[in-house]
């Protein structure tokens, strides 16, 4: 039918063909304008006319398009473009405007394949068949044209000209075209086309907004005169598709500041893309061809997806992120949370159907792919921080997807639970009642061996876990629980894993006991396990099923008796108890302190030592101790009479010194500290307590602990035993004397690992329910463990090494 307009013909004969063409439109309107019942076709009538205005704007001749829904349900569309030509169309013998209105496929936009000059290069319209279809499906249509300072008018009814184009009068300074039509409807006459004339302001606004975004700089005004208070909306977006994606994501939070924007041309195809990622999981990619949306995508979308996946993959590989996280991602992962507007302008697009829901022009795919590949790689290079954020999000999407799949897999495997399906490393117990069963998670194979032999097979199961070490870049060795270990653990517990699959009712043991060495690695494995349970099986902890074993750190033997001691503090307690036996502390005034009283004094001495240990090492301990006993650290002392204080410390030092080593002198220093000096064999020995330490909180604490000793150390005293005694000048002396007495006749063994204990010892100390102590893990402990874990780990991607070095001590004494 396209030839109709071009065929040179006589006026009469040709006009009959034209009428036939429009007759066909009325007969089968669905083919040309869409559904006439659900409103889509009706709104299409408006778009069809608007497209002409947009075309004028795209060609640079118009700046605004106004759409008005009149009170009588007619619609007018006016642009301020050049105005439809009104001069005589040579081929048709009537005005060009009339040709456009009454002939199918007439208009400038169909000439885009040649260089005739009057064509639109790329037409936004092309919706089908042009405005003549609107005319054909209208009861009446009025055309007004402002051109060459003159206003023209024509009127059509049922697609036929009833008033030829005529001059209305001069219109100085005005230009443009207005089409006002009354769509044919059943509400007006029985054989009308559309079932009603209910235009939806919202629907029009949505589509016109799209057009305003896609045609940056074009102003679109919508007016609705039907309500008592007319509605007006002006749509104008200079940012184009960039603003479009922002608008689409207006209620979401984006992970980047500005959308990625690219525009370019390949083989005559203009490609414009704006994309950004938000923190949701939904993909929203809107492809357009010549301003028309493709619900079902097509070659442009395929090209875009291919390029996106490729570019991100390349970046993830080259930046090392993919390797670090050990994951490959799919295109779906890459598009999670992506909002994108992909707009192509194609000279002669081909679609799979009349409704243009899918673009099939094969030349578009390479054009889009090529351009997006190039521009996006550029962008990634220029914006490394944002690139990292984007790829990080994509990796997370892949991780989550993988995890859900694996969780299902692991859990399914467990459903066919029998002994055979249990992990080979697990030494299970005979008991089948979970309430009576215990599972020991033991670090290392050798300890696992001891535990397997030493346990009670009836109800104690043992699962050895190996804390793998992993050599990552920078030649460092990291402790980790391998995927194998975690998988084995999950299978042994029987609960399954993951938010959907985990079922605490299937737990096979109601006591899960973590048993690790009392060293840094043990602490690390324990932290890993606790964090895993806390995060992925919180019900296990809430149910009170998780425990920590307390294997001894020391074994002491005296004669035939053997004692296991949990830690350093336990060992000291033991040594003090031993050292106290038969000891009496005799003060200068003859008072004897022994038994429980002496134990209390020694407890005070331990506290004193703890505070003393907190001082920086360059301060002399003995001087600090005596200064504290002389009252130098009592509140306010240092700021009262400093010389008197210096003298009293000197006097105290003389008192505890040997007779020939006395002669301490105290002086005030420039920073209001004290300088203590004596001459020993002709050499001056100088000790300084500077002003800062004298007034520090630590000094205050030490002074306060010294003050609590109740005068025990006011004068030198004597620690007496049956056969000997020794002089005591302060808490340190006393503690040392008692401890060294306690050590006498002892053999001390420090267990470096559980593996050093033989099976019997392990049973006696750690496994035997009668003798062992188990710490039950509480959720509160775990929030803290997680915190420590997070700090230890730092970011998975960039572990914070500094923190770990600074907190090495804390880690060693981790105790949950």
């Amino acid at each position, binding site marked *: 039918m396209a030839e109709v307009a071009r065929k040179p013909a006589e006026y009469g004969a040709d006009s009959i063909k034209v009428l036939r063409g429009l007759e066909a439109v009325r007969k089968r309107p669905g083919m040309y304008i869409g559904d006439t019942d659900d409103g889509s076709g009706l709104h299409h009538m408006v778009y069809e006319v608007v497209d002409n205005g947009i075309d004028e704007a795209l060609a640079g001749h118009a700046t605004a398009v106004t759409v008005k829904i009149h009170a009588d349900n007619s619609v007018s569309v006016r642009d301020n473009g050049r105005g439809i030509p009104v001069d005589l169309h040579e081929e048709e013998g009537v005005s060009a405007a009339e040709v456009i209105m009454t002939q199918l496929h007439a208009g400038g936009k169909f000439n885009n394949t040649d260089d005739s000059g009057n064509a639109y290069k790329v037409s936004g319209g092309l919706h089908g068949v042009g405005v003549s279809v609107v005319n054909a499906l209208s009861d009446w249509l009025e055309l007004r044209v402002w051109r060459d300072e003159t206003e023209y008018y024509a009127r059509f009814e049922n697609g036929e000209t009833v008033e030829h184009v005529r001059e209305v009068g001069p219109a100085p300074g005005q230009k443009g075209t207005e089409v006002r039509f009354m769509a044919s409807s059943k509400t007006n006459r029985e054989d009308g086309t559309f079932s009603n004339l209910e235009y939806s302001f919202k629907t029009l606004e949505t589509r016109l907004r799209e057009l305003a975004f896609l045609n940056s700089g074009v102003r679109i005004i919508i007016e609705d005169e039907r309500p008592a208070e007319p509605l007006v909306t002006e749509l104008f977006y200079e940012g184009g598709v960039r603003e479009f994606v922002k608008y689409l994501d207006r209620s979401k939070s984006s992970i980047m500041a500005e959308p990625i924007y690219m525009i370019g041309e390949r083989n005559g195809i203009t490609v414009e893309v704006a994309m950004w990622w938000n923190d949701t999981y939904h993909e929203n990619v809107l492809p357009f061809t010549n301003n028309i949306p493709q619900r079902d995508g097509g070659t442009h979308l395929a090209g875009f997806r291919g390029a996106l996946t490729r570019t991100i993959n390349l970046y993830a590989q080259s930046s090392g992120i993919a390797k670090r996280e050990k994951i490959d991602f799919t295109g779906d992962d890459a598009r999670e949370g992506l909002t994108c507007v992909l707009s192509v302008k194609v000279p002669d697009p081909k679609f799979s159907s009349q409704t243009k829901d899918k673009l099939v022009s094969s030349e578009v795919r390479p054009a889009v792919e090529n351009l997006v590949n190039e521009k996006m790689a550029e962008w990634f290079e220029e914006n490394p921080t944002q690139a990292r954020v984007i790829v990080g999000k994509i990796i997370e999407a892949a991780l989550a997807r993988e995890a859900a799949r694996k969780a299902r897999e692991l859990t399914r495997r467990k459903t066919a639970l029998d002994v055979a399906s249990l992990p080979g490393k697990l030494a299970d117990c005979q008991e089948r009642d979970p309430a009576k069963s215990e599972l020991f998670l033991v670090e290392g194979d050798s300890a696992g061996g001891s535990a397997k032999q030493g346990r009670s097979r009836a109800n104690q199961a043992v699962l050895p876990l190996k804390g793998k070490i992993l050599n990552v870049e920078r030649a460092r*060795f990291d402790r980790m629980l391998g995927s194998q270990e975690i998988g084995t653990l999950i299978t042994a517990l029987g609960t399954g894993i993951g938010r959907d699959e985990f079922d605490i009712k299937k737990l096979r043991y109601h006591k899960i006991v973590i048993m690790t060495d009392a060293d840094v690695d043990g602490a690390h494995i324990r932290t890993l396990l606790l964090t895993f349970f806390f995060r992925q099986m919180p019900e296990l902890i809430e149910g009170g099923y998780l425990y920590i074993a307390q294997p001894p750190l020391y074994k002491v033997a005296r004669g035939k008796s053997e004692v296991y001691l949990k830690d350093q503090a336990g060992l000291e307690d033991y040594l003090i108890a031993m050292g106290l036996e038969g000891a009496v502390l005799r003060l200068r005034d003859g008072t004897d302190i022994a038994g429980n009283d002496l134990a209390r004094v020694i407890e005070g001495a331990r506290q004193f030592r703890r505070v003393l240990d907190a001082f920086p090492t360059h301060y002399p301990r003995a001087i600090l101790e005596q200064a504290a006993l002389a009252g130098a650290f009592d509140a306010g002392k240092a700021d009262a009479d400093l010389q008197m204080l210096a003298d009293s410390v000197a006097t105290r030092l003389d008192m505890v010194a040997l007779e020939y080593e006395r002669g301490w002198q105290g002086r005030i220093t420039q920073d209001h500290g004290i300088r203590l000096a004596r001459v020993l064999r002709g050499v001056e020995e100088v000790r300084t307590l500077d002003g800062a330490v004298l007034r520090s909180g630590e000094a205050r604490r030490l002074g306060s602990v010294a003050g609590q000793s109740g005068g025990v150390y006011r004068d030198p005293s004597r620690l007496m035993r049956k056969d000997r005694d020794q002089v005591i000048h302060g808490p340190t002396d006393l503690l040392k004397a008692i401890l060294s007495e306690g050590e006498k006749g002892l053999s001390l063994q420090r267990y470096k690992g559980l593996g050093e204990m033989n099976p019997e010892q392990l049973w006696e100390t750690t496994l035997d329910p009668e003798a062992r102590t188990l710490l039950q893990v509480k959720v509160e402990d775990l929030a803290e463990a997680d915190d420590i874990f997070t700090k230890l780990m730092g970011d998975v991607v960039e572990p914070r090494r500094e923190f770990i070095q600074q907190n090495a001590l804390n880690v060693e004494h981790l105790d949950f």
Partner: protein
Amino acid sequence: MSCPICAKPGDPAYRPFCSRRCADIDLGRWLKGSYAIPSDDPVEAEDLQNISPEADERKRPH
């Protein structure tokens, strides 16, 4: 406490995480063995067997 993955406030249904998504991301890292605590300990001989060959190569002087 805040979500260990994204630091947003936690959701009791997904404790200690804020969402199913973050819980899954975390699980994914466990199942991949991506969580590791840096250690400064000297490497034991038996542990050396667990080190991947490529890591070994990196250590070898050229």
